């Protein structure tokens, strides 16, 4: 079928967006920070998808990773600690036409914002959530976060943290109405890009935990994994991630895992032998909250006024006759 007039006009030499157009301010993360790799992957995704910059919103909370919106040449909302998800939900509810990305950290998401995370997963609104997990509060100069390994010495745990680390993957895989869970690492750019891309393409709440190096406060946390490919377990499937020959040659530990298999995903997340990387779970049939709550009529100023007056009239004291 021939195109509509609008599409015809748009196709008349529409300019191609370059990666530089998606760049915002100069990043102020430390040299060697894994956030830089995540930023590069996301900017590449925006370019490859040719997203309209004015139709993209990055929402964040507080923390190193939450500086992300400043570094994107799109709209952004640098919010309050732990509150990235409710802000993103509000944006999506009112403007479902926008592409919404959320950048949150392990402290922001798994500690103060944990309740929002649980309910955002359940709401399954169409957005891509990247949890930058460096296992530490970096912005405030090293305090233990929920995902810090047991024994982590920090400003708040000088004798080493007492508890085993919280597992965000296992926690998410136990939440209701789940639709997409993946894990990536910042030091394999090809895989990082592919996972974020699949998260973006999935219609629903795409939760991607990204293991991210912090060279300043947790310099050796992931060093073993970076240097030894055998420490990773790459999840492959024709409906998930398919590895390039080069990557498959280096990373020999591979497991075919159907992203629809929730029990299998929970089993993988529960094992601590190797770090799983790939799509753990994806279910495209879960309805999105913004679709379920789509207004049946156009929200006009007149309609809002009418609604308000109806509500206010309930409290009006009418003069007696």
């Amino acid at each position: 079928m021939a195109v509509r007039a609008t599409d015809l006009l748009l196709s008349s030499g529409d300019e191609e967006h370059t990666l530089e157009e998606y760049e915002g301010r100069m990043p102020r993360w430390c040299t060697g920070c894994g956030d830089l790799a995540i930023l590069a992957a996301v900017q590449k995704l925006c370019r490859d998808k040719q997203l309209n910059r004015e139709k993209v919103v990055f929402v964040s909370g507080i923390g190193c990773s939450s500086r992300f919106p400043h570094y994107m040449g799109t709209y952004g909302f640098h919010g309050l600690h732990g509150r990235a998800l409710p802000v993103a939900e509000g944006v999506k509810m009112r403007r479902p036409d926008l592409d919404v990305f959320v950048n949150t950290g392990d402290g922001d998401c798994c500690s103060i914002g944990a309740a929002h995370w649980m309910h955002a997963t359940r709401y399954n609104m169409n957005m891509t959530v990247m949890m930058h997990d460096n296992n530490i509060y970096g912005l405030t100069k090293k305090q233990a976060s929920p995902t810090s390994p047991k024994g982590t010495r920090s400003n708040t745990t000088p004798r080493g943290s007492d508890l085993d680390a919280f597992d965000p993957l296992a926690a998410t895989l136990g939440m209701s109405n789940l639709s997409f869970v993946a894990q990536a690492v910042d030091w394999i750019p090809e895989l990082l890009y592919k996972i974020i891309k699949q998260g973006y393409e999935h219609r629903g709440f795409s939760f991607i935990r990204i293991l991210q190096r912090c060279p300043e406060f947790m310099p050796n946390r992931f060093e073993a994994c970076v240097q030894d490919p055998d420490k990773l377990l790459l999840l492959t499937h024709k409906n998930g991630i398919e590895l390039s020959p080069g990557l498959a040659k280096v990373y020999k530990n591979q497991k075919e895992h159907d992203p629809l298999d929730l029990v299998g995903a929970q089993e993988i997340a529960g094992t601590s032998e190797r770090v799983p990387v790939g799509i753990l779970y994806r279910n495209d049939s879960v309805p999105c909250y913004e679709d379920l709550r789509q207004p049946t009529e156009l929200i006009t100023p007149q309609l809002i006024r009418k609604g308000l007056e109806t509500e206010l009239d309930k409290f009006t004291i009418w003069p007696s006759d």
Partner: protein
Amino acid sequence: MSVELQELLSFHRTGKNRALKDKKEPALKLRPALFADYSQLSKLRYDYPLVLLDESRNGDHVISLMDLINEVLRLVVPPGTQGTRVRQQVLALELKIRELLRTVPPSKLGELWRRAEKDLLAHQSDEVAQQLQESWDTAWAALRVDGLVVDCDSELPEQFVRHFWRCEEALRTKRGSAKIDRLILKLGDILTVDELKSESSRTPRKLRDSLGSRYQDAFDFDIMAELLNSAAAPVRLPAQRKKRIKAALATLKSQHFFKHSDTDASAGQYGFQYRSVSAAMAAWYERLPDLVALNNAIAVAELEIDNRYCETRHDLYLGRLGAHALSPADLAFFPSYLVSLSERDLDSGEQAILMDALSSDLPLKILLRVNDILGSPSPVDAQLHNGVRGQQFAAMTVGLNDAFVVQGSSSNLYHEQAAVERGINFGGPALFSIYAGSCNMPADLPVYLSTAAAIESRAFPAYSYDPSAAGGLACRYDIEANPQLEAQWVAHEFIYEDEALQRVTETLAFTMLDFATLDVRYADYFADVPKDSWHENMRPAVEYLELAEQERQELVPYVVMIDDKNCLHRLVVDDMLIRVAARCAQNWDTLREFGGINNSYAQAAAERVSQHMAAEKEQALEDLRAQLASRPGVATSGSAPAALAREPEQDVASVAVETIEPELEDADPEGAYIETPRCTTCDECTARNARMFAYDENKQAYIADLTAGTYRDLVEAAENCQVAIIHPGKPLDPKEAGLEDLLARAADFS
């Protein structure tokens, strides 16, 4: 040859035999034998009447009364004896509704239900009446739908197609209105925001009004206005853009194709239902400038709202987007036109306009009620229409290959509803050619039977043709609505009692000749043969049709009929009608071939392949036999040993193409390089020397200029790289200070 046979043959061959005609039963009292079970149609439960639903349910716009009652019974009837009673009571009500349909004006199901209740309760005792009322109330509560009840009559095609058209158009109009209202709102918002940036919006009075009354005394609005106006002037919309938005807004607000949310229903809206093609076409062309303007205004609005309108590129296009540029995708947004026609009212001029309209891309939905399939017998002998008159418009339209075509009859519309819906939603023109019964049929013959006979006899086969369907001709044709697709003629079991009151079972075919017996104009082409004159050379017409010309000598074809007392008769058929029936069969074969059944090309190709494979196999066997024979000590026989006769199995492993990804070109071990795809963009190297190291288009590092730094820079970058992907290679300057140490450190990254 006996005298009796000569009499029969003379009628069959000439159509004239006074003696035989005088003996015959008046033709109109006879019916095809297979009609025997349908003498009291209103007492039977079948798929008519239909309920045209007021509100579509699960995507269905119509449901048969029988299906609806069955559904209700499944929901509310309790198991056991109690259930049997309720079932009977509800079925009695359904029967009453069927009877009422023949006497009361067109009504909704609810009205008919209440009327039937009232009639049935009139002579019941209070106790029985209470029981009945309880059962019917329960059933009615489970119905949850209402709508006009229509029976299978001559008006049905128009009621049915119009109902579907209205339902689909209601959805389209709702979507269109919502879209236009949204565009108006968004464009209005752009202008409102711009207006708020104007000086006139910052006057003390405007500022005071914007705050409300309670805290007005707390502010000095004069100073506030002065302060605001002294600040840098805000960026306003460019005049050209503002003008463009206002023009688009005005067009959207003044359009007449869709209802606006703030106006009364249909006020000022265009109508889209017509009784002639020329009137519909005239309306189309009259409204075309408005349609083009609205279409362009929508395009402008969508681009402006997304901030994607670029004057340098789009002004040029927009100025040239006229009627010729309207694409099917554009037209799919606008309402379609429904034209209701009767074939008998079409003069030659209107026929030409009809074909012209159907060959256009315009969204015209044309309902053509066909009332005459066979056509009148021509005054000139041997010049019949050959039974194709009623099919000509549908066949011609298929030939255009641009329009959606549905051919069917009133009796099978319920089963063709999916095709009707697809035709209504088709982007271009659609023709619905529906046989609605004929005035040349007996007045007491129900329309359901006469129209069903048209389908069963292959005189008017049902099919749809969708030119947009991918996958070849067989995918575009859908002939599934016809009974017994694989058979030339539809056949049914026929049971009767013979003279000795013994049960006899026969299989009777229902041919185009049976259909012709219903048409009063063809009465003279049949002759009723009294039973005492039945001859052994008489053959059922369906058998006769299958015989070659030379085999038909001295045989007389007949069709089996019944009279009003259910006694069997045989009608001898004029040879001219036999030729018409043969042509009807050929047409059916052609249609089946179009629909993918018995495709002659595919059959021929399959036969060729089969022969080729057989020859190859035989050759392979011959070769094996020859090999065996040449071996000493092996006895030759007529057939190869079983193991050798088996088709050689293909060794999958041996033929599988091994796919090996090409290795990346080996890097020069002497030169410095970076494994760019593995770069994590950590800024280590670029921060060290931004001229030597740079990022590519994917923001991953590569060596931009090896001469822009020292070998030390390279080695230190390699040492600090988080993922160890920098390989320093050999130094460019052999005299660089401390080279020995640097080479030793670089060795770790070679």
